[in-house]
Protein backbone atom coordinates (compact mmCIF):
# COMPACT_ATOMS: atom_id res chain seq x y z
CA UNK A 1 0.00 0.00 0.00
CA UNK A 2 1.73 3.14 -1.24
CA UNK A 3 1.57 5.96 1.34
CA UNK A 4 0.14 8.35 -1.25
CA UNK A 5 -3.02 6.30 -1.70
CA UNK A 6 -4.21 6.55 1.92
CA UNK A 7 -7.43 8.46 2.36
CA UNK A 8 -7.23 11.31 4.88
CA UNK A 9 -8.47 9.98 8.26
CA UNK A 10 -11.89 11.22 9.38
CA UNK A 11 -12.22 12.26 13.03
CA UNK A 12 -13.83 9.56 15.20
CA UNK A 13 -15.46 12.05 17.54
CA UNK A 14 -16.84 14.99 15.58
CA UNK A 15 -17.55 18.27 17.41
CA UNK A 16 -21.18 19.15 18.03
CA UNK A 17 -19.98 22.61 19.01
CA UNK A 18 -16.48 23.63 19.96
CA UNK A 19 -15.50 21.78 23.09
CA UNK A 20 -18.33 19.22 23.02
CA UNK A 21 -17.86 15.94 21.17
CA UNK A 22 -20.62 13.79 19.83
CA UNK A 23 -19.65 10.67 21.78
CA UNK A 24 -19.15 10.16 25.51
CA UNK A 25 -16.03 8.75 27.13
CA UNK A 26 -17.45 5.25 27.37
CA UNK A 27 -18.65 5.35 23.77
CA UNK A 28 -15.22 6.55 22.64
CA UNK A 29 -13.55 3.75 24.58
CA UNK A 30 -15.67 1.31 22.67
CA UNK A 31 -15.07 3.06 19.33
CA UNK A 32 -11.31 3.05 19.72
CA UNK A 33 -11.45 -0.69 20.16
CA UNK A 34 -9.39 -0.73 23.34
CA UNK A 35 -11.61 -3.59 24.59
CA UNK A 36 -10.59 -5.63 21.52
CA UNK A 37 -6.90 -4.90 22.04
CA UNK A 38 -7.17 -5.89 25.68
CA UNK A 39 -9.08 -9.05 24.81
CA UNK A 40 -6.38 -9.98 22.30
CA UNK A 41 -3.74 -9.49 24.95
CA UNK A 42 -5.50 -11.51 27.65
CA UNK A 43 -7.25 -8.86 29.72
CA UNK A 44 -4.57 -6.18 30.09
CA UNK A 45 -3.37 -3.50 27.72
CA UNK A 46 -0.14 -4.63 26.06
CA UNK A 47 2.97 -3.05 27.50
CA UNK A 48 6.50 -3.11 26.28
CA UNK A 49 9.49 -2.91 28.52
CA UNK A 50 11.09 0.44 28.97
CA UNK A 51 14.21 0.76 26.90
CA UNK A 52 17.18 0.92 29.16
CA UNK A 53 18.47 4.44 29.19
CA UNK A 54 22.19 4.52 28.43
CA UNK A 55 24.02 5.91 31.45
CA UNK A 56 25.07 9.48 30.63
CA UNK A 57 28.83 10.06 30.94
CA UNK A 58 29.65 11.67 34.30
CA UNK A 59 29.70 15.46 33.84
CA UNK A 60 32.52 17.36 35.47
CA UNK A 61 31.57 20.55 37.28
CA UNK A 62 32.57 23.53 35.08
CA UNK A 63 35.91 25.24 35.72
CA UNK A 64 34.53 28.72 35.20
CA UNK A 65 31.33 30.38 36.32
CA UNK A 66 30.70 33.81 34.73
CA UNK A 67 30.30 36.68 37.22
CA UNK A 68 27.01 37.97 35.74
CA UNK A 69 24.27 35.85 34.30
CA UNK A 70 24.91 35.12 30.66
CA UNK A 71 21.78 35.69 28.56
CA UNK A 72 20.76 32.94 26.20
CA UNK A 73 19.87 34.14 22.70
CA UNK A 74 16.17 33.81 21.83
CA UNK A 75 15.25 30.74 19.85
CA UNK A 76 14.89 31.47 16.12
CA UNK A 77 13.23 28.77 14.06
CA UNK A 78 13.01 30.78 10.83
CA UNK A 79 14.31 29.08 7.73
CA UNK A 80 15.76 30.90 4.77
CA UNK A 81 13.51 30.39 1.76
CA UNK A 82 14.16 31.28 -1.89
CA UNK A 83 12.85 34.72 -2.82
CA UNK A 84 9.26 34.53 -4.03
CA UNK A 85 9.09 35.34 -7.72
CA UNK A 86 6.34 37.76 -8.69
CA UNK A 87 3.57 36.04 -10.64
CA UNK A 88 4.02 38.48 -13.51
CA UNK A 89 7.62 37.31 -14.09
CA UNK A 90 7.81 34.09 -16.11
CA UNK A 91 10.64 32.84 -18.35
CA UNK A 92 10.63 34.94 -21.48
CA UNK A 93 9.09 38.06 -19.93
CA UNK A 94 10.47 41.40 -21.06
CA UNK A 95 11.66 43.31 -17.99
CA UNK A 96 12.53 46.98 -17.61
CA UNK A 97 15.63 47.49 -15.48
CA UNK A 98 15.24 50.48 -13.21
CA UNK A 99 18.65 51.03 -11.66
CA UNK A 100 22.30 50.58 -12.34
CA UNK A 101 24.31 50.85 -15.51
CA UNK A 102 21.50 49.53 -17.67
CA UNK A 103 18.63 51.54 -16.26
CA UNK A 104 15.74 51.88 -18.66
CA UNK A 105 16.86 48.93 -20.77
CA UNK A 106 14.31 46.38 -21.82
CA UNK A 107 15.68 42.94 -21.24
CA UNK A 108 14.59 39.29 -21.50
CA UNK A 109 14.18 37.25 -18.32
CA UNK A 110 15.66 33.74 -18.45
CA UNK A 111 15.35 32.14 -15.03
CA UNK A 112 15.56 32.73 -11.31
CA UNK A 113 18.82 31.61 -9.70
CA UNK A 114 19.00 29.89 -6.33
CA UNK A 115 20.10 33.13 -4.65
CA UNK A 116 16.79 34.71 -5.70
CA UNK A 117 18.35 36.99 -8.32
CA UNK A 118 16.98 36.96 -11.84
CA UNK A 119 19.16 35.80 -14.74
CA UNK A 120 18.66 38.19 -17.60
CA UNK A 121 20.09 38.86 -21.06
CA UNK A 122 19.74 41.81 -23.50
CA UNK A 123 20.26 39.98 -25.87
CA UNK A 124 23.72 41.48 -26.08
CA UNK A 125 23.62 42.18 -29.82
CA UNK A 126 20.35 44.07 -29.49
CA UNK A 127 20.90 46.33 -26.51
CA UNK A 128 24.30 45.63 -25.01
CA UNK A 129 23.08 43.93 -21.86
CA UNK A 130 25.07 40.71 -21.31
CA UNK A 131 24.04 37.65 -19.30
CA UNK A 132 23.57 39.30 -15.97
CA UNK A 133 21.96 38.94 -12.59
CA UNK A 134 19.38 41.49 -11.54
CA UNK A 135 17.36 41.92 -8.38
CA UNK A 136 13.62 41.49 -8.65
CA UNK A 137 12.98 44.72 -6.77
CA UNK A 138 14.74 46.83 -9.38
CA UNK A 139 12.69 45.58 -12.26
CA UNK A 140 9.30 46.27 -13.83
CA UNK A 141 7.74 43.24 -15.46
CA UNK A 142 5.92 44.01 -18.69
CA UNK A 143 3.27 41.72 -20.08
CA UNK A 144 5.25 41.12 -23.27
CA UNK A 145 6.60 37.57 -23.51
CA UNK A 146 9.33 36.19 -25.76
CA UNK A 147 9.46 32.54 -26.78
CA UNK A 148 12.35 31.12 -24.80
CA UNK A 149 11.96 27.42 -25.57
CA UNK A 150 15.07 27.18 -27.72
CA UNK A 151 17.40 28.46 -25.03
CA UNK A 152 19.36 26.27 -22.63
CA UNK A 153 20.07 28.01 -19.34
CA UNK A 154 20.89 24.95 -17.25
CA UNK A 155 24.56 25.73 -16.80
CA UNK A 156 24.16 29.21 -15.33
CA UNK A 157 24.10 29.58 -11.59
CA UNK A 158 25.36 32.03 -8.98
CA UNK A 159 28.87 30.59 -9.00
CA UNK A 160 29.21 31.40 -12.73
CA UNK A 161 28.77 35.06 -11.88
CA UNK A 162 30.86 35.14 -8.75
CA UNK A 163 34.05 37.15 -8.56
CA UNK A 164 37.13 35.23 -9.55
CA UNK A 165 39.31 34.38 -6.57
CA UNK A 166 42.88 35.49 -7.27
CA UNK A 167 45.92 33.69 -6.07
CA UNK A 168 47.63 35.57 -3.30
CA UNK A 169 50.78 37.26 -4.52
CA UNK A 170 53.61 38.52 -2.46
CA UNK A 171 53.43 42.19 -1.75
CA UNK A 172 55.43 44.10 -4.32
CA UNK A 173 54.55 47.44 -5.87
CA UNK A 174 55.23 48.70 -9.37
CA UNK A 175 55.24 45.62 -11.58
CA UNK A 176 52.55 44.01 -9.51
CA UNK A 177 49.96 46.72 -10.25
CA UNK A 178 50.59 46.81 -13.96
CA UNK A 179 50.27 43.08 -14.30
CA UNK A 180 46.98 43.02 -12.41
CA UNK A 181 45.34 45.67 -14.56
CA UNK A 182 46.02 43.79 -17.75
CA UNK A 183 44.42 40.63 -16.47
CA UNK A 184 41.22 42.18 -15.15
CA UNK A 185 39.96 43.89 -18.28
CA UNK A 186 39.51 40.95 -20.64
CA UNK A 187 36.39 38.82 -20.53
CA UNK A 188 37.21 35.12 -20.90
CA UNK A 189 36.32 33.65 -24.28
CA UNK A 190 34.05 30.95 -22.88
CA UNK A 191 31.77 33.58 -21.37
CA UNK A 192 31.55 35.29 -24.74
CA UNK A 193 30.65 31.95 -26.32
CA UNK A 194 27.99 31.33 -23.70
CA UNK A 195 26.49 34.72 -24.50
CA UNK A 196 26.44 33.94 -28.20
CA UNK A 197 24.84 30.54 -27.78
CA UNK A 198 22.08 31.87 -25.51
CA UNK A 199 21.41 34.83 -27.75
CA UNK A 200 21.33 32.89 -31.02
CA UNK A 201 18.09 31.10 -30.26
CA UNK A 202 16.62 34.17 -28.55
CA UNK A 203 17.29 36.52 -31.43
CA UNK A 204 15.53 34.15 -33.81
CA UNK A 205 12.35 34.16 -31.75
CA UNK A 206 12.62 37.92 -31.27
CA UNK A 207 12.86 38.60 -34.99
CA UNK A 208 9.72 36.57 -35.53
CA UNK A 209 7.70 39.32 -33.83
CA UNK A 210 7.54 42.61 -35.77
CA UNK A 211 9.06 45.64 -34.00
CA UNK A 212 10.18 43.58 -30.99
CA UNK A 213 13.84 43.96 -31.88
CA UNK A 214 13.70 47.75 -31.98
CA UNK A 215 11.55 47.67 -28.82
CA UNK A 216 14.26 45.80 -26.94
CA UNK A 217 16.88 48.13 -28.36
CA UNK A 218 15.12 51.24 -27.07
CA UNK A 219 15.29 52.49 -23.50
CA UNK A 220 12.19 53.13 -21.44
CA UNK A 221 11.63 56.61 -20.05
CA UNK A 222 8.77 58.45 -18.45
CA UNK A 223 7.45 61.20 -20.65
CA UNK A 224 5.18 64.12 -19.81
CA UNK A 225 1.69 62.98 -18.85
CA UNK A 226 2.66 59.38 -18.07
CA UNK A 227 1.44 58.39 -14.66
CA UNK A 228 3.26 55.22 -13.52
CA UNK A 229 0.48 54.18 -11.17
CA UNK A 230 -2.02 54.29 -14.05
CA UNK A 231 0.19 52.74 -16.72
CA UNK A 232 -0.36 49.17 -17.71
CA UNK A 233 2.98 47.50 -18.32
Amino acid sequence: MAPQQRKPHVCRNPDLIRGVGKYSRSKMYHKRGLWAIKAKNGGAFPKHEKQAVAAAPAEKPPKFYPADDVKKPLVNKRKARPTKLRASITPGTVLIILAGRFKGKRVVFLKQLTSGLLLVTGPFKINGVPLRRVNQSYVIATSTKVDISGVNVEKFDDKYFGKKVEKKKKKGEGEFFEAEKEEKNTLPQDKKDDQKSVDAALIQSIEAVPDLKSYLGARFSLKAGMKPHELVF
Partner: protein
Amino acid sequence: MPFKRYVEIGRVALVNYGKDYGKLVVIVDVIDQNRALVDAPDMVRGQMNFKRLTLTDIKIDIKRVPNKKTLVAALEAADVKNKWESSSWGRKLIVQKKRASLNDFDRFKIMLAKIKKAGVVRQELSKLKKETTC
Protein backbone atom coordinates in the same frame (compact mmCIF):
# COMPACT_ATOMS: atom_id res chain seq x y z
CA MET B 1 -31.07 77.66 -24.44
CA PRO B 2 -33.82 75.18 -23.50
CA PHE B 3 -33.00 71.76 -22.16
CA LYS B 4 -32.72 68.99 -24.72
CA ARG B 5 -32.17 65.86 -22.60
CA TYR B 6 -34.96 65.22 -20.12
CA VAL B 7 -35.21 62.80 -17.23
CA GLU B 8 -38.02 60.54 -18.40
CA ILE B 9 -38.85 56.89 -18.33
CA GLY B 10 -36.72 55.24 -20.95
CA ARG B 11 -33.90 57.80 -20.90
CA VAL B 12 -30.50 56.11 -21.20
CA ALA B 13 -27.91 57.55 -18.82
CA LEU B 14 -24.24 57.01 -18.09
CA VAL B 15 -23.23 56.35 -14.48
CA ASN B 16 -20.45 58.77 -13.55
CA TYR B 17 -19.75 57.83 -9.93
CA GLY B 18 -19.76 54.75 -7.77
CA LYS B 19 -19.65 51.01 -8.13
CA ASP B 20 -21.25 51.00 -11.59
CA TYR B 21 -19.04 53.75 -12.99
CA GLY B 22 -19.08 53.86 -16.78
CA LYS B 23 -22.17 51.72 -17.26
CA LEU B 24 -25.12 52.63 -19.45
CA VAL B 25 -28.39 52.38 -17.52
CA VAL B 26 -32.01 53.09 -18.29
CA ILE B 27 -34.18 55.29 -16.09
CA VAL B 28 -37.12 53.06 -15.33
CA ASP B 29 -39.00 55.18 -12.78
CA VAL B 30 -38.57 58.42 -10.86
CA ILE B 31 -38.63 58.04 -7.06
CA ASP B 32 -38.53 61.64 -5.93
CA GLN B 33 -36.87 64.92 -6.77
CA ASN B 34 -33.38 63.48 -6.43
CA ARG B 35 -33.53 59.79 -7.19
CA ALA B 36 -34.47 57.50 -10.01
CA LEU B 37 -35.06 53.80 -10.26
CA VAL B 38 -32.48 52.58 -12.70
CA ASP B 39 -31.98 49.29 -14.52
CA ALA B 40 -29.55 47.66 -16.93
CA PRO B 41 -29.29 44.14 -18.38
CA ASP B 42 -26.30 43.24 -16.20
CA MET B 43 -27.30 44.76 -12.88
CA VAL B 44 -29.98 44.45 -10.24
CA ARG B 45 -32.60 47.18 -10.56
CA GLY B 46 -31.90 49.86 -7.95
CA GLN B 47 -32.12 53.50 -7.02
CA MET B 48 -29.56 56.07 -8.00
CA ASN B 49 -29.21 59.75 -7.31
CA PHE B 50 -29.47 61.94 -10.39
CA LYS B 51 -26.13 63.42 -9.45
CA ARG B 52 -24.57 60.07 -10.28
CA LEU B 53 -26.10 60.01 -13.73
CA THR B 54 -25.24 61.87 -16.90
CA LEU B 55 -28.10 61.86 -19.38
CA THR B 56 -27.45 60.81 -22.97
CA ASP B 57 -29.33 61.54 -26.16
CA ILE B 58 -30.68 58.02 -26.36
CA LYS B 59 -34.25 57.22 -25.28
CA ILE B 60 -36.05 53.91 -25.51
CA ASP B 61 -39.74 53.14 -25.54
CA ILE B 62 -40.77 51.40 -22.32
CA LYS B 63 -43.60 51.56 -19.82
CA ARG B 64 -42.94 52.46 -16.16
CA VAL B 65 -40.84 49.72 -14.45
CA PRO B 66 -40.86 46.96 -17.06
CA ASN B 67 -39.72 43.35 -16.53
CA LYS B 68 -36.09 42.61 -17.11
CA LYS B 69 -37.10 40.63 -20.20
CA THR B 70 -39.14 43.48 -21.61
CA LEU B 71 -36.34 45.93 -20.86
CA VAL B 72 -33.74 43.82 -22.63
CA ALA B 73 -36.07 43.38 -25.62
CA ALA B 74 -36.68 47.13 -25.78
CA LEU B 75 -32.93 47.80 -25.64
CA GLU B 76 -32.38 45.38 -28.49
CA ALA B 77 -35.19 46.90 -30.53
CA ALA B 78 -33.82 50.42 -30.13
CA ASP B 79 -30.29 49.16 -30.85
CA VAL B 80 -28.91 51.23 -27.98
CA LYS B 81 -25.52 49.53 -27.94
CA ASN B 82 -24.72 50.32 -31.55
CA LYS B 83 -26.14 53.83 -31.36
CA TRP B 84 -23.95 54.49 -28.33
CA GLU B 85 -20.79 53.03 -29.78
CA SER B 86 -21.20 54.97 -33.02
CA SER B 87 -21.93 58.28 -31.28
CA SER B 88 -18.92 60.55 -30.81
CA TRP B 89 -19.28 60.44 -27.02
CA GLY B 90 -19.35 56.64 -27.04
CA ARG B 91 -16.40 56.45 -29.42
CA LYS B 92 -14.36 58.77 -27.21
CA LEU B 93 -14.97 56.56 -24.20
CA ILE B 94 -13.90 53.49 -26.15
CA VAL B 95 -10.68 55.20 -27.20
CA GLN B 96 -9.99 56.27 -23.61
CA LYS B 97 -10.42 52.70 -22.41
CA LYS B 98 -8.16 51.38 -25.14
CA ARG B 99 -5.46 53.91 -24.34
CA ALA B 100 -5.58 53.06 -20.64
CA SER B 101 -5.16 49.36 -21.35
CA LEU B 102 -2.14 49.72 -23.62
CA ASN B 103 0.89 47.60 -22.95
CA ASP B 104 4.42 49.09 -22.87
CA PHE B 105 5.09 47.32 -26.20
CA ASP B 106 1.84 48.70 -27.64
CA ARG B 107 2.86 52.20 -26.69
CA PHE B 108 6.17 51.69 -28.46
CA LYS B 109 4.45 50.44 -31.61
CA ILE B 110 2.12 53.43 -31.55
CA MET B 111 5.11 55.75 -31.26
CA LEU B 112 6.66 54.17 -34.34
CA ALA B 113 3.37 54.45 -36.23
CA LYS B 114 2.99 58.12 -35.29
CA ILE B 115 6.49 58.91 -36.49
CA LYS B 116 5.85 57.11 -39.76
CA LYS B 117 2.56 58.90 -40.33
CA ALA B 118 4.12 62.27 -39.55
CA GLY B 119 6.89 61.50 -42.03
CA VAL B 120 4.43 60.73 -44.79
CA VAL B 121 2.40 63.86 -44.06
CA ARG B 122 5.52 66.00 -44.06
CA GLN B 123 6.58 64.59 -47.42
CA GLU B 124 3.24 65.40 -48.99
CA LEU B 125 3.30 68.86 -47.46
CA SER B 126 6.76 69.58 -48.81
CA LYS B 127 5.62 68.42 -52.25
CA LEU B 128 2.70 70.83 -52.12
CA LYS B 129 4.98 73.61 -50.93
CA LYS B 130 7.28 73.06 -53.88
CA GLU B 131 4.41 73.30 -56.33
CA THR B 132 3.02 76.59 -55.07
CA THR B 133 6.44 78.24 -54.56
CA CYS B 134 5.11 81.28 -52.76
